């Protein structure tokens, strides 16, 4: 599934490992989501949204 996670992540200058730690998942998961090879479950997708949004 296409998403803008990489764009949003690089805007905030976060590494994949940092975002993975915030969301309590592995770096492999973040990479797979960004490259569109994995569609996260709904709970993880919502967690994603909050962690990226509230970082403002």
């Amino acid at each position: 599934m296409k998403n803008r996670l990489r764009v949003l992540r690089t805007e905030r200058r976060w590494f994949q490992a940092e975002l993975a730690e915030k969301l309590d998942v592995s770096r492999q998961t973040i990479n797979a989501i960004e490259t569109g090879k994995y569609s996260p479950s709904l709970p993880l997708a919502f967690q994603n949204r909050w962690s990226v949004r509230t970082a403002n």
Partner: protein
Amino acid sequence: MATHCSRAAPIVPILFGLRTLSSSLNQMDELQRRIQLNAIAFAAGTTGMITVTYGFLENAGFPHLLLFSWIWIFPMLIAIWGINLPIIGWRYR
């Protein structure tokens, strides 16, 4: 009695190993669990298919394998699981 117990002693570390496996699966995130599930399901299916197929072939006249005892079925499962894991994980790179 003592020799029988000592020959069955490897069962104890196997039980600890199962407990480690269970706790590590609980700690994994969703993608890793999915990869593990695919790998172990494929390993179980392949092991089952190999053993059942050779069982039928033995009935059809193939030689009975003297060196292959029951004890090798579980290592076969684990080996196929281990080999399969990076192959399936590679798909998500």
